[in-house]
């Protein structure tokens, strides 16, 4: 049900932290923010879904392990299977991995430390709901803030992700050089974000919702939200 303004749902789980910022970013970028609740059994006709950052269910057992069983996740899985755009940010990325919508898993940072700073990302593909307006090779600045952001995968999953062009972002220098110095958490191949096979599901550790307002930080999140709103307007998931 796509109107003149795309409806972007943001799920609040118990312990979600960045749902308000994600809703605000949608509004600032010209979309209609729709709050979704973890116990919801329908998605209120949204055109895209964001799973926000935070500590859903206290990160008990493993990050994202319990959120995956929330009632709303059944709907999100169905929506994604129909081609609906779904973006998982930070804890939302962890939830997507635990739900099996994206490959791999996120473990404790290599440094043992929580990291909170702006990073540069090199865009690897424009063929996702989050990067349609971007060109591979360009760099954007977005903050990260996580303790468990080291993406790892089985050798088979890693082969598939690299071979099929499913890496969406890598940690890099401002000039787009991928070196270990720029990898804040030890992620395999400096991977900061990945997509599913068809590109409608994207997970990333950095926080584009904190990077849309020039008054409070970098603006690297703007083209990502613009892409998501554009994809949602096209009504892929409707």
């Amino acid at each position, binding site marked *: 049900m796509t109107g003149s303004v795309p409806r972007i749902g943001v799920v609040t789980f118990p312990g979600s932290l960045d749902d308000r910022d994600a809703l605000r970013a949608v509004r600032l970028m010209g979309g209609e923010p729709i709050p979704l609740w973890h116990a919801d059994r329908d998605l209120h006709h949204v055109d895209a879904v964001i799973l926000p950052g935070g500590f859903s269910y206290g990160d008990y057992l*493993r990050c994202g392990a319990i959120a995956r069983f929330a009632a709303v996740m059944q709907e999100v899985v169905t929506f994604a299977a129909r081609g609906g755009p779904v973006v998982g940010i930070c804890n939302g990325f962890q939830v997507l991995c635990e739900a099996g919508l994206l*490959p791999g*898993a996120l*473990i*404790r940072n*290599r440094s*043992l430390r929580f990291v909170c700073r702006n990073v540069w990302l090199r865009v690897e593909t424009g063929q996702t709901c989050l990067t349609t307006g971007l060109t591979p090779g360009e760099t954007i600045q977005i903050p990260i803030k996580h303790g468990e952001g080291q993406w790892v995968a089985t050798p088979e999953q890693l082969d598939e992700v690299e071979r099929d062009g499913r890496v969406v972002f890598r940690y890099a220098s401002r000039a787009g050089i991928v070196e270990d110095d720029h990898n804040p958490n030890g992620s395999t191949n400096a991977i900061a974000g990945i997509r599913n096979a068809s590109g409608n599901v994207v997970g990333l550790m950095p926080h584009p919702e904190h990077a849309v307002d020039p008054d409070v930080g970098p603006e690297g999140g703007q083209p990502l939200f613009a892409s998501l709103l554009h994809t949602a307007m096209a009504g892929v998931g409707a």
Partner: protein
Amino acid sequence: MTTFSFEVLVTLKDGLSDPQGTAVESALPALGWSNVRHVRVGKHIRLDVNADDAGSARAQVEEMARRLLSNPVIEDAHVMEAASS
């Protein structure tokens, strides 16, 4: 129905870096133990299951371990029978 008790040990797969284990290892010398290597930190989960027999109970716990208690991408799970509580 009978109650069967189990313990499940969840550990990071060999070869994956274990930052928690590294943190513990680097703290031990402060207490005088500089002779410790290869510290790995895991999770211990204890539970009781009502089932018809021990085989069924174990099969169910093995499935729980695979589907929820561990993430098979990064972790191994060992299911052990435990003394009844």
